[in-house]
């Protein structure tokens, strides 16, 4: 079936919208970095190249990203093997708990770490009291602190990818290797590991990109240590807009270089794709002391992973100004939560985040669904291009997109496709939407590719037109993929900090910005309460997505 004229028209429209939202702003940044009001210039590029601070920031970004990948792999891969291959006592519950850092939005995780390991956090105060020190034992600052947060939040990628890949391996693979006389170690090295390469590559790429774009941790903990995303924000605050654009370009180039290096590694789907055969039996751990040791280690680890969540919960009950140097807060109250609901000023960011995320999610799902149907079902010739544009924002760090959108939509020039959106209600949903397109479209595309095309053809031979087929067949069968894509998008938008901090207005300030300002006013209780709300909302949305996704 060739694409109908209507499908081609829709594809052209969609391409235009994507080009305008995704490509155009970045192209503008590229151009503006090389121009000033008098015309073309290399001045800002030269300025960038001459300043050692710029090189230090770029280098910082690179090595932090590489180190994050190494740390995340060192934690995530062994955990994946432990829970996917061995019959650990309580493994089912533990295996789920291990993925918990995923429900902490970046800024909330950073804040939790601050309360927990910061110089006035629980652990530091405890150590100080235990050893009778007069000074806090450490300062949570610089590269080490950033890496700590990254390792905690990003090992989840390795854990989930590798576990899914291990579970999708056919049991007969192990049996075949054993029957050919390969021992456990040789089987691992020669049979299992090669099967894991795509998952490892995907996880490494995802971790690298996330670490490279990471903003919350360097912003809060960086101190004098700059990475490029924080450098860009600082430069912009100084008013050097065009230098910031050159910095933006350098960060984008770094991301593109990484993508090129890892081009063989297709970002795997967390769902694990089509499973063949039966998953291998877990290896029972027989020795009793070993079982106890593993169980103890596992539960200890789970406790460690849960500490930030618990910390947040505890701090959220602390009234303003009551907790200073005691290891544990002396007073607890529910007032922080009550004000979140009752005080209109406090409730506003909550409502803002909800509607901003909802609008962005609905739009991202609609655009992704349209693109997926046009590309995978209507066979328009531009299908590949549509898919490429949908996944492009994934390559571009959030800071870069924030700058790009701020540049493109701060000028009124309708004939150039530019309108003033900065400072209005609409810039944030637009930014969230663009940033969410890759995850949403990937989930929906995977879903639609998993549907047998002859279902559509069957509906056609039964006299159902395009609309009825979409309504009665395609959409109901896509529901799991739509829910998965939507929940991912909603949670990401809900917790967004990096684009929000550059584009928000007072009227549209989201939760993350309110957490930041509460922290600045030392109102830790309210900041933590916001964090808990975000955490619970994220977990609930994930649960709905996973639940419906599984049973549909």
């Amino acid at each position, binding site marked *: *079936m*060739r694409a109908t004229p209507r499908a081609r028209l829709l594809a052209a429209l969609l391409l235009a919208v994507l080009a305008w939202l995704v490509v155009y702003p970045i192209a503008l940044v590229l151009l503006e970095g090389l121009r000033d009001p008098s015309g073309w210039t290399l001045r800002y590029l030269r300025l960038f190249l001459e300043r050692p601070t710029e090189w230090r920031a770029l280098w910082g970004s690179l090595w932090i990203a590489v180190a994050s990948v190494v740390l995340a792999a060192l934690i995530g891969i062994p955990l994946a093997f432990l829970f996917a291959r061995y019959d650990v006592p309580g493994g089912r519950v533990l295996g789920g708990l291990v993925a918990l850092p995923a429900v902490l939005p970046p800024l909330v995780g950073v804040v939790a770490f601050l309360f927990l390991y910061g110089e006035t956090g629980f652990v530091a105060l405890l150590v100080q009291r235990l050893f009778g020190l007069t000074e806090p034992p450490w300062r949570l600052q610089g590269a080490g602190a950033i890496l700590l947060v990254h390792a905690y939040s990003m090992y989840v990628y390795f854990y989930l990818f590798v576990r899914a890949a291990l579970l999708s391996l056919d049991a007969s693979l192990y049996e075949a290797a054993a029957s050919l006389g390969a021992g456990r170690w040789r089987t691992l090295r020669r049979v299992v590991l090669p099967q894991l390469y795509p998952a490892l590559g995907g996880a490494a790429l995802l971790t690298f990109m996330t670490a490279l774009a990471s903003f919350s941790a360097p912003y809060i903990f960086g101190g004098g240590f700059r990475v490029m995303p924080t450098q860009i924000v600082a430069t912009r605050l100084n008013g050097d807009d065009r230098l910031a654009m050159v910095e933006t370009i350098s960060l984008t180039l770094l991301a593109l270089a990484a993508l090129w290096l890892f081009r063989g590694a297709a970002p795997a789907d967390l769902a694990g794709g089509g499973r063949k055969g039966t998953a291998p039996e877990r290896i029972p751990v027989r020795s009793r002391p070993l079982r106890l040791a593993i169980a103890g280690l596992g539960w200890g680890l789970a406790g460690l992973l849960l500490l930030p969540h618990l910390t947040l919960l505890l701090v959220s009950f602390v009234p303003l100004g009551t907790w200073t140097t005691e290891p544990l807060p002396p007073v607890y109250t529910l007032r922080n939560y009550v004000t979140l609901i009752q005080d209109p000023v406090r409730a506003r960011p909550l409502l803002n985040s909800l509607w901003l995320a909802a609008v962005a999610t609905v739009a991202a799902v609609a655009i992704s669904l349209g693109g997926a149907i046009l590309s995978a079902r209507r066979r328009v010739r531009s299908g590949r291009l549509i898919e490429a544009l949908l996944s492009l924002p994934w390559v571009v760090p959030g800071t870069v997109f924030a700058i790009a959108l701020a540049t493109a939509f701060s000028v009124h020039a309708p004939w150039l496709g530019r309108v003033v959106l900065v400072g209005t209600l609409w810039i944030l949903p637009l930014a969230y939407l663009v940033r969410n397109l890759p995850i949403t479209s990937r989930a929906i595309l995977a879903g639609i590719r998993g549907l*047998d095309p*002859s*279902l559509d*053809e*069957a*509906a*056609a*031979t*039964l*006299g*159902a*037109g395009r609309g*009825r087929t979409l309504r*009665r*067949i395609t959409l*109901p*069968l896509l529901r799991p993929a739509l829910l998965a894509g939507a929940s991912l998008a909603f949670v990401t938008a809900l917790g967004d900090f990096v684009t929000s901090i550059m584009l928000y207005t007072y009227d549209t300030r989201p939760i993350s910005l309110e957490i930041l300002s509460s922290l600045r006013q030392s109102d830790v209780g309210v900041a933590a309460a916001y964090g808990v709300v975000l955490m619970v909302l994220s977990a609930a949305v994930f649960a709905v997505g996973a639940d419906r996704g599984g049973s*549909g």
Partner: protein
Amino acid sequence: MSAFLRLEGLVKRFDAALAVDGISLALERGEMLALLGPSGSGKTTTLRLLAGFETPDEGRVLVEGEDVTRVEPVSRRFGMVFQHYALFPHLDVRANVGFGLESIGVRGAERDRRVDRSLALVDLPGFGGRRIAQLSGGQQQRVALARALAPEPRVLLLDEPLSNLDPTLRERTRRELRELIHRVGITTVLVTHEQDEAFELGDRVAVMREGRLEQVGTPDELYASPANAFVGGFVGQSSTAEVVVVGPTPRGTRISLDGIEWDLDAVPGHPVPPPGPALMLVRPEALRLTPHEPGAVSATVTERRFVGPSAIFTVRTDGGAVLDVVAPPQAAPAGARVGLMLSRRVGGGIHLFPPDGR
């Protein structure tokens, strides 16, 4: 004579490749035609051209004289059973079967009545409330058939309808399918690569290769006088050998295999190649094994396969030809020296073609 369904010179190219290369066929009302061919022969593409999923680059499809070549599948009113059935997994059996009825505006009690009738037709009464995942492969196949037939389409298309069933079920389902379709009396085109399936289901069989029709005819016609070595080889058991046509005899032709001359009876309507090298296609039952004797072609038994009460022996003649012969299982052990003669009991079963087999 005006046919009910007519395919006129259909041509379909994918990029540069010719998938379908000038197919013309005509079906009477109620006739069942089997498109038989190896994979890549263009039979599935032909079926998709009929269904309207593909548009031919040349040629037309006519139903009762009406040109439907450019009619969308949605309005073509051709029912189709897909290879993997394509049942809607989120709808129950009743909703699946009723789906096409709703398209033509049949709703409510009338729809329920016709769904029940369709389910009874495929011998699944009372299955309406079942989920698709609860059905066995054979039941899914019948639901797919009921769904395709419920809106009373003009033509029924079957894409390898039995390929997803296990072999024991396949034979029974084949008989049921044939009986059912003849009872309904619907004009049917079936695609298969299984010769047994084509021969049992098709009133006529169209053998396809590389996008072209090699021969169209009843199963008897195809078996008795294949148009070329491909059809002969694809239909029924056979083996081939290079022979020399010596010349005509009063009753037929004289040929020479390994220097031994055989007189063949003429097959009506089947031309004999001119004297010289030729390709002989021979059915296993047209030859017999004898003790090693003068007048018989000397050969060695290389393999023996049991087929029902008899066995097929593969023998290699001293001249190097490899031929299959049917004989009682105990006739000769593997490795034995034997003679090869024409079977007197079977007339025909040997076909001569020019050396290229066309």
